[in-house]
């Protein structure tokens, strides 16, 4: 099996240069290594740019409502345990509209891999703040700058009891493919939050901005230590860790 076996006939509707392309590449690579047939894979999504991703892969797809990918995925997994279930979603879809499902599906701990394409902005609705937009960022709707604190999704996931928590960067496709494969192989609920530049609406968190800050967790980091994972999950600003923060 190679990436051609996962080729979809649908044409891609993302902006040129979108960070999602790197995530799509990484996901396909991970699925090739994982090796299951397309018929046994189910990609579930909600609404947003990231939620279009299942159409661009040859695999079963349920592209549902905004914010509601996780409950559909949970229902499908409980009904048909043979399916490898992966959710592709965005920061608005998953942490905003679907926040309650995010918390409770971590608790439910079904064998589902959740990939959040986190571009820190609403893309499909043209540039409003998302739950992960940094405080102070100016948008059309927040002309005085975002006044609320940005969400730390990895810390939230750890607090809710997630057993697998990772962060990737869409430009680091090989590294990200490894994280996704580890998430799929993890027997339980796995979160991979992916830093993903929005080239059209996010003028702050650009490829350059992320590249200057991200660093890969090395072998000296022990992802089995929950307290250490908490600390890492809150590291944001000048240095941003990517890799597996926690794996139980």
């Amino acid at each position, binding site marked *: 099996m190679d990436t051609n076996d996962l080729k979809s*006939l649908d044409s891609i509707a993302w902006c040129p240069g979108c960070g999602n392309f790197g995530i799509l590449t990484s996901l396909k690579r991970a699925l090739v290594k994982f090796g299951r047939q397309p018929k046994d894979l189910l990609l579930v999504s909600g609404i947003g740019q990231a939620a279009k991703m299942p159409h661009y892969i040859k695999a079963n797809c349920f592209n*549902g409502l905004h914010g509601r990918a996780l409950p*559909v995925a949970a229902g499908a997994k409980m009904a048909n345990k043979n399916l490898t279930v992966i959710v592709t979603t965005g920061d608005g879809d998953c942490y905003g509209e679907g926040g309650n499902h995010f918390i409770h599906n971590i608790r439910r701990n079904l064998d589902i891999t959740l990939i959040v394409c986190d571009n820190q902005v609403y893309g499909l609705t043209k540039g409003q703040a998302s739950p992960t937009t940094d405080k102070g960022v100016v948008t059309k709707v927040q002309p005085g700058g975002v006044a609320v604190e940005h969400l730390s999704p990895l810390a939230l996931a750890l607090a809710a009891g997630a057993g697998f928590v990772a962060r990737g960067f869409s430009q680091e496709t090989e590294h990200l493919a490894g994280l996704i494969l580890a998430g799929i192989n993890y027997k339980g609920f796995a979160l991979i939050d992916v830093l993903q530049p929005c080239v059209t609406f996010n003028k702050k968190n650009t490829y350059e901005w992320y590249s200057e800050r991200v660093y890969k967790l090395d072998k000296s980091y022990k992802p089995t230590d929950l307290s250490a994972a908490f600390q890492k999950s809150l590291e944001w600003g000048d240095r941003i860790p990517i890799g597996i923060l926690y794996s139980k």
Partner: protein
Amino acid sequence: MPHEISVRITGEAGQGTQTIGDALAKIFSGAGYHLFAYQDFMSRIRGGNNYFEIRVSTKPVKSPRHRPDLIICLDKASVDIHKKELAVDGLLVVDKAKFALDQLEGFMHDVPFNETALRVANDALYSNSIACGFIAGIAGIDFSFVTRALQDVFGRKSDDVVTNNINSARAGFELGMENPHRETFLLPQPDKDGAAAASGLIDGSTAIATGAIKAGCKFYSAYPMSPSTNIMNIIAGRANEFNIVVEQAEDEIAAINMAIGASFAGSRAMASTSGGGFCLMAEGISLAGMTETPVVIVDAQRPGPATGLPTRTEQADLDFIISAGHGEFSRVVYAPGSAEQAYYLTVRAFNIADKYQIPVVVLTDQYLQDSMVDVRGFDPDKVAPEYFNISKEESAKVSGYKRYALTDSGVSPRAIPSWIQDVIYADSDEHTEEGHITEDAATRKQMVQKRLHKKMHGLLAEIEKPTAVNIDNAEVVLLGFGSTLGILQEVTQALWNKKVGFVHLSQVWPFPSNDMLKLLSDARMIISIENNAQGQLAKLLRRETGIKVSKSILKYDGRPFCLDCVIEIVKPEI
């Protein structure tokens, strides 16, 4: 000797009116009587005032009476709350010593429940069983039926508990036998053949839960909400036996979306809720319509708006349910009128949802959910699950699969992911036959016609026939839907010679317009009877057929109709 009596047991929440009620229903049905029992309870766990009322008869009964013949008060507060509702010649039973009453009014009768319980079982808790025994004694029931019922109700507890309950009931039974007013309450012997045909007791919640199990439901998700919660309790209790996944969702939005996910992945799925929860599910209903995913949803109505009266009844969701969810798509809404209909229509709901790949709603209410009746000649195997998806065997032959392939019927063959070799794309966006997102105008038009016009065409041929009784030459035709069937039946029976008939709808969408035109076009006078404030059924009838009702009898105080009250209103119209 009356052929029927109505008994009300009342006390605080937590005093066990429901347990006595269950035992009484078992006693009387075991002895071969017909019965109708329902509960009136407040939205609280302790305190307040609740009651259980049971109407027992040698003839079929399907609705509550206005005034109970016998009221058993378990606490002092109940006396003042209920004494005004006692029937003429009725008896209000009190525990004079326990309630510290100085003197009793003429209609009151003292039974020392507390003292007797302490004497017989050394625990005041057993007052309830004394009350049970007393009622059986005064109505002339053989004590063996009491023993059997109590063993059934308390059988899972220790032998001591069972013995104490039976001994207490016997003490109460003797007090009932000795009662000087016994002649007023003594029931004639029930028809022996009828008793032999009795299939047992059923309430609306049990009917829907067992109907879902019969239909092959394998996935059930819900967020607890009165009065729908009992369906979840019953299915959860039998989930292991029938291999059903029962998932308590974090909210109703999750519940409906989980059910849709499970259905897409190959399981028959249901979600249940009440009006407020259904509001949260509305977008999910629309999703089921768009993705063409079969799903069954139960709306057990309670009075709104907003939180309303959580433990009471209403039929005010009709307008909402037939149009809930944005956009235009096909759906079916059933409105069962009895527990039996609820069972059959729940099975049908699953079959129709599967056949047309649409959301199907079973519209019930607190009154139907919590009312218990005896059933005779009930055949649970009269209905069976019918599956319409591509079977596992056929799946091997599928190639070039398109989830939304255009067909004459509007229904595309539905494959299950991982059963076929191809992959399946389902989408909430407008989509191509392959299931990919499109904005093409021609495709959009074809897909709307598929989901709405073509499927509706098929559904119109599968409408549940309304029940019509005594309508030829009727002076007055009563009209209702859902839980009022029993009232319509009994009022018609009572006023049969005065040319009163009824039409009852157990399916409200698609609306049975052709049937209604046939049944009602020549009616001299139509009176709709509805548990809502607008006459929603009457309005719907006019919208769909042009037929106007002459009058609507509307009740929106959160309580169900009672037989006597409706007769009183209808009579002057004849």
